[in-house]
Each structure stands twice: as C-alpha cells, then as structure tokens.
C-alpha cells in the first residue's frame, strides 16, 4: 500500500461508492434500485475526478480581478469532464426508467429475476406446445 491512502479520503470514498453502486446494479433484483445503483456508480466516478482536480488553497477556475496565473486556480479539466459525464448519466437513467415502465406494463413486476422466470416459462411452454403438436400430428 502506498502512502496516499492516508490523505485521499475522497478517492477512497469514491471507490467504496463505486463498488456499492456496482453491487446494487448487479444483484439488486429491483429495477428502480438498479437504476439508483447505476447513478451512484457514476457519481462515484465523478467524485473521484473532481477530487483529482482540486488543489489545496486555490479557488474555482473563474477569472476574478483579472488574475491570470495558473497558481491561483484549480485544474479546470476534471470539472469539464464531469459536466459532460453528468449529462450522459442522466440520459442513460432516463432511458432505463422508460424501459422499466414498459417492463412493468408488460409483466406487472419490478423484479428482474421474476421477469426472467416468466420469460423462461413462456419460452419452455411454447417449445413444448410445438413439440406436442408435432407428435400428435405425426401419430395421427
């Protein structure tokens, strides 16, 4: 382990949040919580980036009093990247929410595992119906 682990609280929190979001996204059966997990995961990455841009004792990158020295402002790049990223994550969650509504309308449940069971049932039943028809068709 390196020494930065004692100073980089934001990054450590970001890693923990990333993993919490990741687990929510993967093993929560509920679709709404999955989407929140996705948002938490994205927010964690943005926290990581923003913490990277911070420099102790400097101010936000908005020119004040005409000072144009790099020693006076924090790094503007991470902020720009995060700004772009937030838009992307909103778009993605909106699409997932729309999909959730459609899935609910179709299957009457928000539980993805339940939905998968229903799908499997439908599929197997269809297959068996086809096979049965065929058998009866042939024996007749």
């Amino acid at each position, binding site marked *: 382990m390196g020494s930065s682990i004692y100073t980089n609280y934001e990054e450590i929190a970001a890693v923990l949040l990333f993993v919490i979001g990741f687990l929510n996204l993967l093993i929560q059966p509920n679709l709404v919580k999955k989407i929140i997990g996705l948002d938490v995961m994205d927010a964690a*990455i943005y926290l990581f980036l923003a913490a990277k841009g911070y420099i102790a004792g400097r101010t936000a990158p908005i020119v004040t009093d005409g000072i144009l020295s790099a020693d006076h402002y924090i790094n503007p790049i991470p902020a720009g990247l995060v700004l772009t990223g937030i838009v992307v994550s909103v778009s993605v969650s909106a699409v997932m929410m729309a999909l959730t509504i459609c899935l609910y309308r179709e299957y009457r449940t928000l539980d993805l595992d339940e939905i998968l069971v229903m799908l499997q049932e439908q599929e197997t039943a269809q297959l068996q119906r086809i096979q049965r028809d065929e058998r009866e068709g042939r024996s007749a």
Partner: protein
Amino acid sequence: MSLIQNFPFFTIILSMFSGIISFILNGKAAKWLHLLMTAAVLVMSLVTLNWCMVNNVSYTFMMGHFPAPWGNEIRVGTLEALMAVFFALLMLLSVLGGIANLDRDVQDSKKNLFYSMLDLLMASLLALIYTNDLFTAYVFIEICTLTACGLIMIQKSGRNYVSAIRYMIMSQIGSGLFLIGLSMLYSVTGHLLMTPASEALAQLAKSGSFDVPLEVILILMTVGLAVKSGLYPFHTWIPDSYGYTTPTSSAILSSLVSKGYIFLLIKLFYRTLDFNGLENGKLLDILFVLGIVGMIMGSVDAIREDNLRRMTAYSSVAQIGYIFMGIGLGTTAGVEAALFHMVSHGAMKALLFVCIPDLVDVSGGRADRAGLTGAARRNRFAGFAFTVGAMSMVGIPLLTGFVSKYLFAAAATGALRTKMLTAWIALAISTTLNCVYFLRVVLAIYTPAPEKEALAEGAAHSPVERTAMAGLIALNFALGVASPPVVWAIRSGLSMFS
C-alpha cells in the same frame, strides 16, 4: 491541407446532422436520407482510403483551433479509412437486406426515430474509428450503447425490453470501468489525447513512478471494453439481444457495434498503452485464454441451441473469442488477423442474420431446426445465401472465413510455443464444432419436406433485399478470393497506426 483530408470529418458531421434532421422528417424521407448518407459516407471513405494508400501517410485533423494537447483531434490513416469503408458498406447492406422486415416490424410513426438512431450509430462508429482523444471516445461509446439499445427495443415486445435492459446493465458496467480507468489515466498523466498521454506514460515507465496505478488502469480499460464487446464470461446478454429483434438490428449489432469497441481497444493498445510493452505483462495472456475459452464455449452453446437466430448469436460469441485470441497472441501478425477477422466476421454475420428471417418466413414462423426442414427448397435464394454464410463460417476455401482462419493459424506460428499449440488446437476444435452446428442446419434446410410446400406461397420476395443479399454474398467471395490487397492495406495501416 487538401479537401480530401477533410472527408473523415465531413462523414462524422454529415451522419450526425442527418440523425438530427431525421427527427422532424417522416419515415420514408428519413429512410432515403439514411441510405443517401451511408452511400455518401461510403464514397468519401473510399476516397480517403485511396488518398491514404497513395500517399502512404497518416495525419491528424484538429477539431477546432487548438493543436494536440489542448484541443480535440481525429487521426486518419489507411487502417481507419479501411474500417470506415467496411462499416459503411456493411451498414448499407444490412439496412437494405432487412428493409422489408423493417417496414413490417417497426411502427410507421417511429420509423423516422429508427433511422435517426441508425444515423447517429454510424456517426458514433465513425467517431470511434477516427478519434484520437480518450474522452471523446467515452462520449461516443455512450452514444453507441444508447443507439444499440434503441435498435434492440425498436420491435416492441416484452422479450426485447428484457434483453434491452440486460444489455444496458452490462454495457453500463463496461462504461463505468472504462471511465474510472480513464480518470485514473488522466490523474497520472494529465493528458486526454492518446499521443501525448502515451509520451507521458513512457516517461512514467522510465522513472518507475505510478507503476501500480498504470497496471490497474490497463486492467480496468481492457475489461471495460471487453465487457461491452461481449468477450466470453461477459457474453450473457448477447443471445437475447441478437436473437429476437428485427434482422437489420441483429446484423448491425453483431457485425458493427461490438467491432467498434474492439477497434477502440486495439487503438488504445497501440497508441496509448504501448502494445510492445504489453507483451511482458500478463494481460494479453488473460485475453488469449478468455478468447480461447470463448471460441470453444460459444460453439458448444451454439450446438445446444435449437433456435436458429440464437444459435447464430452464440456463434458471434465464438467469433469475438477468435478476435481476442488474435490480439492475445501478442504479435503484430495476430492483430492483423484479428482486424481481418473483424471485417470478415462482419460480412458473414450480416449475411446470416439477413437471410435467416426469409427462411423462417417460409417455415410458418418456426426457427427451430425441425421446423426449418426443407426451407431452402421453398426459398432457394435465401437457402443459398445461408449456405454461403455457413460455409464461410466453417472456413471453406474461396470464402472469407477460410482466409481469416488461415491468417490466425499463420499468426500463431510467430507466437510463443505454448500459445502456438493452444491456438492451433483451439482453432481445430472450434472449426469442428462450427461444422457440426452449421452443417446440421444446412442439411436440415435442404432435406425435402413435401408436406410443407404450401408454406412457401404466402412469403414475399423483395428485390431490394435480394440485391443486398447478393451484395453480401459477393463480399464474402471477394474477401475470400481477393484477400491480399485487404491484408496488405491492414498491414500498411497498422505500421503507421501507433
């Protein structure tokens, strides 16, 4: 700077603009706009390819007024132009090949949205091919993911919603891993453009600082892109997503979208993460092993599957395995073979996905093997197309699948001894398994089934679809017979790639 050098930029902007404009057009106009746009992209990419090959240079194109470490830029070379040509060609043929099905499957009021998505997908693929900036790559990866999700759910049914949401979940995990890798890369190098970042990385490697983050970055970015392209243990979303949508979507998803991510990965390896340095690491070995496992397990899953479209989707898992195996060999020849296979797999899979619905149509909607008996006798042209695609997948000489298998086998000779033997054995096993499941279907569709003759009557024959299928068949033969120029172009493009 000559006008021709602007063409890659024009193709990206043109496809984005047509995507935006399609939003207020009606379905028919949007369709024509899409076809014209793809044709224009194809022509412009061909001109660019010609220019690059004649001058034998690659150049960077500034997106704005600021040069490399400050502004965005794209980079154009023979390899990029070649990929753009093939992507545009396959897009055009896939859309034309499924056009009758599209008219049936997509609601009239949503056609313009569908074509808008296709245009933006083309734009994002072109941007992924050309971009020289990591963050631009991330943004366009997201466009690619969302449009692909739109293509899956365009045919509204519960099953497609489920596959779309599973696709989104897996893809978002991939994007998340890629983005956190990207943030770490930025935090240790301070650059987002590929070339300056790689210079900074070379300095870091020399000074020995940040060794641990560098390794983790490499793992995160590679795994992220591998998840998105569907490498073996992350492939669970593939069969559902490819298996049930409209055929054009399946063809585009399997032959273009996943290839875009793999191309980006190769570019990352070459431009930023130092491919030659990678040979010493374990990462390529892991990719190689996963590729091999994917080649075999994908084929086994395909054998177990009875539904023809799902079987073809599983075979895509195997083919992605081939590509990663080629990259994992760790030699330039391996990457060349992988790149050629990206093109040739695109041609084969587009053909298969486009012709399968025609066979299903003349079998009363049945896609299982028993139901398809005699389908090729009822629709001879589609049967022939399927046979060509299947033969190509198996690797019969004169067809493109043979060339890529040959290239893989030849590339393996240059690799380490253990890798060489493993690759050869895996190729042999995978080819045998390919034979089993494809020839089984070919035999089934040619088995006479007189009692089903009546099913052929209602089936529609669309001349446009047939022309597109003929085009794909010709492409398969052309890549098989006249492969040397393509291989030469890939080779020369790869030499100026990094």
